[in-house]
C-alpha cells in the first residue's frame, strides 16, 4: 500500500485531519496581513469581490480536477474543453442571443456548455479506461486535439459584443461602494453552488466514496465489484462539466471569448489543487484544501500586482511557493517515517 501522508483525504477526523489545511490557512492569513499593511487596496470589500469574481472559474475547475485526482487520474485537457465550450456559448450568443432573452438564454447557454463539457469529458474517460495509458499522456494529447480542432474551425477569432442580458449577468445581492457596485454575481453564485455540490458528492454519496476508494486501491475496488469504467467516465465527465461551467462564468466576467484566455492555465489550477494537499497518486485530497490552494494562488497574484511587481515575477514566486510547499510535505512525511521505525534499544 502506498504510504503517503497526504493520502488521509476525507477520513481523518479532528485536528490531525486538517493539519495541512490549518497550515495553509495560516500562510494565507499571514500573507493577507502583510499585504494589508503594505498596500492600500488589498484589505477592502471591493478587492475581495474582485478576487472572487475573477478567480471563481479557477475554483470551479479546481473542484473538478480534485475529483479526477482523488479517483487516481489526472486531466490536463480541461482548459481546452473550457475553451471549446466558450466558443459554443459565444456562437449561440452572437447568432441568436438577442432574440432569446434572459431566462431562456441562460438555460440555453448553460445547457450547451454542459453538453460540450460532458461530451469531451466522456472522450477522455473512455480513452483513459480503454487505452490503459497514463491519464496524463492521454489528456495532454486530447488537449492538443480539442484545441487544434477549435482553432481550425474558428480561425482563432475573438468573439465579443454579446447581448445585454449576458453583460448584466445575475446579481442576487449587491452594494455600492465608492461609486462601484459589488455583490453576489453569477460567478460567485456559481462557485458556491459548485463547491456545495462537490462537497456533497465527495462526502455524502456512495458514488463519491467509491471514487475515493478507487483512488486508494484500484485493484481492491475491482475485486469489490465496483464498475471502474463507470467511475472513470463519471469523474472525467464531471471535470468536463465543471470546466464548461467555469468557461461560461469566465466569459461572463470578461465579456470576451479569446482562444488563449484559459488554455495555458491548466498547470496553475493543478498547482492550486496540489498545494491544497491532493495526492497525485490518487485517493487523497479535500475540497477545503483545494479551495485554500486556489485562494493562496489568487492572493499571491493579486498581492504582487498591487505591489507593482512585474507579471514575470509572479510565475517565479508561484513556482517557489509550490516547491517549498511540496518539500515541506515531503520533509514532514520523512520525519514521521523516521520516528515510526526506530527500535528502542535497551541499555
Amino acid at each position, binding site marked *: *500500500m*502506498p*504510504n*503517503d501522508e497526504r*493520502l*488521509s*483525504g*476525507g*477520513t*481523518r*477526523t479532528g485536528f490531525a485531519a486538517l493539519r495541512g489545511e490549518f497550515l495553509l490557512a495560516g500562510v494565507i492569513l499571514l500573507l493577507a496581513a502583510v499585504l494589508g499593511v503594505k498596500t492600500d487596496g488589498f484589505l477592502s470589500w471591493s478587492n475581495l469581490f474582485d478576487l472572487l469574481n475573477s478567480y471563481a472559474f479557477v475554483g470551479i475547475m479546481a473542484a473538478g480536477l480534485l475529483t479526477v485526482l482523488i479517483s487516481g487520474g489526472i486531466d490536463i485537457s480541461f482548459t481546452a474543453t473550457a475553451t471549446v465550450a466558450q466558443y459554443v456559448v459565444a456562437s449561440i450568443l452572437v447568432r441568436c442571443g438577442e432574440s432569446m432573452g434572459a431566462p431562456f438564454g441562460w438555460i440555453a447557454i448553460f445547457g450547451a456548455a454542459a453538453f460540450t463539457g460532458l461530451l469531451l469529458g466522456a472522450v477522455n474517460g473512455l480513452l483513459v479506461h480503454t487505452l490503459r495509458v497514463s491519464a496524463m499522456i492521454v489528456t495532454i494529447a486530447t488537449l492538443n486535439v480539442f484545441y487544434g480542432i477549435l482553432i481550425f474551425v474558428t480561425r482563432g477569432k475573438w468573439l465579443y459584443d454579446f447581448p445585454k442580458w449576458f453583460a448584466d449577468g445575475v446579481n442576487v445581492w449587491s452594494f455600492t461602494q465608492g461609486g462601484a457596485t459589488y455583490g453576489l454575481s453569477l460567478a460567485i453564485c456559481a462557485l458556491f453552488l459548485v463547491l456545495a455540490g462537490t462537497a456533497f458528492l465527495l*462526502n*455524502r*454519496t*456512495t*458514488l463519491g*466514496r*467509491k471514487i*475515493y*476508494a478507487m*483512488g*486508494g*486501491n484500484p*485493484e*481492491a*475496488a475491482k*475485486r*469489490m*465489484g*465496483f464498475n471502474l469504467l463507470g467511475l472513470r467516465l463519471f469523474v472525467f465527465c464531471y471535470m468536463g462539466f465543471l470546466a464548461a461551467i467555469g468557461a461560461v462564468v469566465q466569459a461572463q466576467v470578461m465579456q470576451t471569448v479569446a482562444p488563449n484566455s484559459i488554455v495555458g492555465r491548466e498547470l496553475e489550477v493543478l498547482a492550486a489543487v496540489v498545494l491544497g494537499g491532493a495526492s497525485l497518486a490518487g*485517493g*487523497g485530497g479535500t475540497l477545503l484544501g483545494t479551495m485554500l490552494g486556489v485562494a493562496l494562488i489568487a492572493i499571491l497574484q493579486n498581492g504582487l500586482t498591487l505591489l507593482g511587481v512585474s507579471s514575470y515575477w509572479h510565475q517565479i514566486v508561484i513556482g517557489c511557493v509550490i516547491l517549498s510547499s511540496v518539500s515541506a510535505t515531503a520533509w514532514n512525511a520523512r520525519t514521521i517515517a523516521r520516528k515510526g521505525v*526506530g*527500535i*528502542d*534499544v*535497551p*541499555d
Partner: protein
Amino acid sequence: MPFVIELTGIRKSFGGVHALKGVDFSISPGEVHCLVGENGSGKSTLIKIMSGVHAPDAGEIRIDGKPCARLTPSASIAAGIQVIYQDLSLFPNLSVAENIGIRQYMEKGRRLVDWRRLRKSADDAMRRIGVSLDPDRPVLDLSIADRQLVAICRAIAEDARLVIMDEPTASLTRTEVDALLSVVRDLQRRDLAILFVSHRLDEVMEIARRVTVLRDGEQAGVYDARELDDARLAFLMTGRNFTWDINRTSCDANAPLLEVRNLSKKRNYADISFTLHRGEILGVTGLLGSGRTELALSLFGCSAPDSGEIRVEGTAVRLESNRDAIRAGIGYLPEDRLTLGLVLDQSAGDNAVLTILDSLVGGGGLIDGRRLDATVREWIESLNIKVSDPAVPVRTLSGGNQQKVVLAKWLATNPKILILDSPTVGVDVAAKHGIFEIVKALAAKGIGIILISDEVPEVLCNAHRVLLMRKGRIVGEYRPDSISQKELAVKINAE
C-alpha cells in the same frame, strides 16, 4: 451437519495447462482447515473456483449439501464465502469503519451514504471478534496485523460463513500471529469455517484440524494436522525427500574475513561485535524489529553506524555508501527482492549483469552485447535458473528463480562477503533447497556468508554458527549441534 462447501472431482485447465486434475475438498462449519502446496500447485485456482471467479471444467460443487450448478462471484458471496487475499484488498485512504462497511456502497439503489449504519456495522463486526480499533482512523495508519483484523471484520460484516485467508501470517510477528490465532479460535466457536492457504508449514497449523495438500494440480492427500512435520510436508508437496541435517562442513576459524567491533547506531542496534570467517555461514536470527535488517544495512554502507569498527580482512573500512561496501567486496540480498532487489520489468539477463555493467563496456564506450549475452548465459547455467528465454521480464519468474537472479547479480561482482536477508521469503521448498545448495557451494569456495532469517530450521540446517538478536542487541551465540529447533524458537520469541 453438512459441509459449508464440498468440491468433488474438480478439474480446470487454462489453454491446455491442467491447473487442477480432479481435486476433492470439503470444510464443515467450525473447522479450521489448511490448504498447502507449492507455487503452481493449483491452490489459487481452487480458491478462485470457490469464490466463483473461475468455473470448473468438470466436477461438482455443493454448498450446504445442495448441488450448485453455477457458482458466480455474487452467489459465492451470498453463500457466505469470503476470501481475504494476501494484500488484504483494503483502501488505505479510507477509515476503518468505511473499509469494514464498504459493501453498503454496492447495495442496489443506494445513492447516499448512511454513515450511522456504516458505523454501526463496523462496531458490531469489531465487537463480535473482540477487537477495538478507532473506527475513524485511516487504515493507512494501522500496522499490518491491525489491517488484517480490519479485513477479517469486513468478512464478518458481510456475514461470512467460510473465510479463506491467503498466507495470513507472512508478514506478522509471533505476538501478532498469536493474536490472530485467538481471533480465529473465536470465529471457530461461532461455527465459522476458516481455510488457511499457505506454501509452508505455518504457525496456523497449530490450530488446524485437517490439512489438504496439493501437488501439481492433484490432491496429495488430506491429513490430520498433528501427523505432519516439516520434512513430511515438504515430501508431500514436492514428492521429493530433502535432507534436514545440520551443515557439518567446516570453515577456516583462523581466517577472519569480517570483524565487527562494538558497532552501535541510535534507535537501530547497540554494541554489536562478531567475526565472520572465510567460508563460514553465519546465521543471524531474531524477530522482525530485532535490528537484524538495520545491522545488515549498515554493513552494506546504507546507513552509517554512530560508533564502532568494521574490518574486512584485517583492514578497517569506512562504509559510507553501498559503493564503498561493494568496493570492499560485500554483496547484499535485500529482504524485499521485489522492490529493492530487482528491476521487475527488465529481463532476467539485464538484472543479472546490473552490478557489472561497467566491466561489459567494449569498444567505443558501448556495452558489448556478445560479452553480455555470454555472461548472462554463464550465470543462468551455473545457478540453474529456470527461464525460457533470458529476455523475459523477471516479474514473470517464480520466487525461487527471481532470488537466483538477485544472487547472480551479486556473485557477478565477485564478493568476499555476502549478506542474505531472508533469502527464502515466498520461495518454494524445492527452490529453497536449491538456493541453499548454491549458498553452501559458495561458502566452500571461501566466501563468508551472513544468513539473516527468522525461519529456525533454515538457519540451523545451513549455518555454522547462529547469532540471536533481540531489541537491537546480540543476546546469544549457538552452534547448531548444541540447540534444538524448538529451543531456538522459544529463545527467538522470548520478550
